[in-house]
């Protein structure tokens, strides 16, 4: 995997963002008994954050030739 140091550092950024979204008090903000469009807010948030993280990772390694 000959990727630039920048790509690696960006991925570390994605990792840190993941910690913030899923393993910090931010999670508690969405861990409430409410629903949005028929979905429990917590499930929507967890899967949404997960999707966001893997999209960011995909953009980081596949996007562009930098």
């Amino acid at each position, binding site marked *: 995997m*000959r*990727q630039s140091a920048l790509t690696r550092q960006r991925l570390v950024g994605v990792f840190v963002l993941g910690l913030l979204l899923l393993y910090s008090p931010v999670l*508690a903000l969405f861990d409430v008994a409410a629903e949005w469009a028929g979905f429990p807010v917590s499930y929507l948030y967890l899967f949404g954050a997960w999707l966001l*993280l893997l999209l960011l990772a995909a953009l980081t390694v596949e996007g562009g030739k930098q």
Partner: protein
Amino acid sequence: MLTTPFIVLYSFLYLGLLFAIAYWGDRRADRNRSVVASPTVYALSLAVYCTAWTFYGSVGRAAATGAGFLPIYLGPTLIAALWGTLLLKMVRVSKSQRITSIADFIASRYGKSQRLGGVVAVIAVIGVVPYIALQLKAIARSFTILQSGPEVQTDTLLTTMPVLQDTALYVALVLAAFTILFGTRHLDASERHEGMVAAIAFESIVKLLAFIAVGVFATYFLHDGFADLFNKAERAGYLNPLVGEGMGGYENWFALTLLAALAVMVLPRQFQVAVVENSDEDHLRRAVWMFPLYLFLINIFVIPIALAGQLSFAGTGVDADTFVLTLPMAHDQAMLSLFAFIGGLSAATGMVIVETIALSTMVSNNLVMPFLLRRWKRLPPDADLGQLVLRIRRGAIIVILLLGYLYFRFASGAYALVSIGLISFAAVAQFAPAMIIGLYWRGGTHRGAMAGLLMGFGVWAYTLLLPSFAKSGWLPMDFLLYGPFGIELLRPQALFGLDGMNEITHCLFWSMTFNIGGYLFLSLWRPPNVHEATQATLFVDALKHERPIGIRLWRGKAEIKQLLGLAERFLGNARARRAFTAFAARRDVQVPEDLPADAETVHFAETLLAGAIGSASARVMVASVTAEETLGLDEVLHILDEASQIRAYSHELEQKSRELEAATAELKTANEQLKEIDRMKDDFMSSVTHELRTPLASIRAFSEILYDDPKVALDERRRFLGIIVDETNRLSRLVNQVLDLAKIESGHVQWRDDAVDLGVLIEQALAVTEQLISEKGVRLERALPENPCVVTGDTDRLMQVLVNLLSNAVKYAPDRDGRIGVTLSRSKDRYRISVRDNGPGIAPADLESIFEKFRQASGGEDKPIGTGLGLPISRRIVEHLGGRIWVESVERKGATFIFELPAGREGD
């Protein structure tokens, strides 16, 4: 519904398909047309992480804890973002040292220690065999459930059936056959199994599709989509969406994630597919997101299936762990339930195959080999050791699978088997400190790693394994409730009084505390010895070296015949000769026998053997046929230091030569520029002298006439003198402008930064040129805005530009009906001033060149009117102020000179 023969037929068809794919993959690999050399196949093979425990168990966990199954997949998702350094390093180290298992990895890192490798292998077997049992149980259980359909049985008595009718036994035997066929075809230095990887990737697709099919059925056929399902579940009281509550606190959420993140790096099967079977480092790039994507997809329907199952089976006592299968069965979906069964089968078999290969490598290389090799000189000299190693591996595969089967028979419905998933994760997590810290810290030693592993494993056994035995009824419960001998402080799941945690979190905390604590304490107790320091450098600096530097770290006497003979005994004649011949060719030697028996050759032989029998054993074997001189620690450090100095030095040289090249290029450009400027200066001089000569010539001519002929009439005389005065004026104007231009060009002008209101300035310029305008009688049109238009610039210089443009316009405007116009307007952040006339205009070819020195628009046959320097000077002034100037013209219709200046900041 589905009859037993029908299910058996389909199961065997599926397994047959798996064999066919593996066979095809191996055949392609033999012909060098690999099917697994693709990043997508690599990412799919990593999904061997999802076992039957995922396929069936996730739904069970979701039913019990809400989001409690998610950390098992979020952990890998997060750690995957760090693979760019972490996994890459593991892959590169393993490739350069021919490491083929976790036991070998850890043994190799801490000085190629045989004992350490053995300990790792034992822990891996103890931690993972029950997990294999769980997979066998899942297959047997799902089979029993499926054949008992259409009624969904709540309790299947698996262990009451005789052994010979037990599905699990046959499954275990078929899987053993598969693993032996595709896992131990030959003893290869790289230990890659392409056929097996192809089959695993295929299984990953099957289990994903099966799970999604059941999910879509549960969500869209049994109910009207997600929202409807959530709604019904909430009314029935099954919805349990709160993460913290469902998990019994956020610390459990965090601990499970950490555990899963570590497990995905250090599970033997993950190491096998991610590191050993990796064919190209570039494949890691796609795995960073595609593996998490796979996990995401296989988890979308976990909660819906759990909720739909709870709604369907309310009060019937059907185990949530079977919903994936029983839900379609209960709704008479025979084919869908068969597909679900096949999906579970693929999840279970994939795990069993890869895990068994990984464990058998460890058992043979790190447990059996060391014993065997101690006595290898006493073996008959013609014994084919390669075949022996293969036989050991095959034996290990059968033993491991039978152990798994026995554990399944023995434990079956016991707690010790049901809960083994996370317990197994916690066991292998004990490898993480020695592996991961060892990749980044040079100070770790063999003693530290050994202490950390043993203490961590001990704490794991005490806080998780023994309690699971107690809960299964194999140990007295008193031990769990009141501690051994009634010592409350030592209660296994409230160690040292740490109470109120979930058992996994509790175990993870204490085992990691002892593991990392022991590792660090003993590593810091004594400095690393020579072997440890050498290996530490090779691991920690793995990403810095293009090729391994271990080559230089050997000194002694060796004979090429002995080395070749050694390799032949393990790899077989043909294979060993092929490898040595290729190596000889790289060193420009014809036949292997002519190779020098130097450090490089010894190193080559050792890594070649390491692939087959493990690095620690290979080191022992090579040492047995060579006479190695022990290098002192100082010496090794010196060599390593030298290597890095040479690197640093050559790096410095490269840097210097790059700098030199850059300097040369710079000089060259500067030289070109100088030449250009010199040429321009010559042109300028000749233009100036030419321009000076014209007025001088006429001054001289008229002066001579006046001087030679005193009788010239008074009128004539006045006319001649007038011409002389005009030409003299022109001369001095020219000289002034030449000086002015030179001053601007050389940068010697002091520019002032005034706030200039352009409207006012234009009025002043018009006042200056009023005389000129009225003399010629041209009409002036002006369009100036009311409000101030302020720019920053030098008032006098801008005035010079305006006066120049205005007088040019007046000059070129026709004598009759002449018109000139001045407009000032603002566009965005710039002011635009244009001065137009209705004179002869400028030919398109001259639009740009009139701004060059001494180029005037050819205003017909008349002699030039100006000096030819006004416009070049104007251009320089405007450009200096950050604006631009240009001319637009239609021939015979006049010309418009336009210049733009950036608007000054508000309030300037």
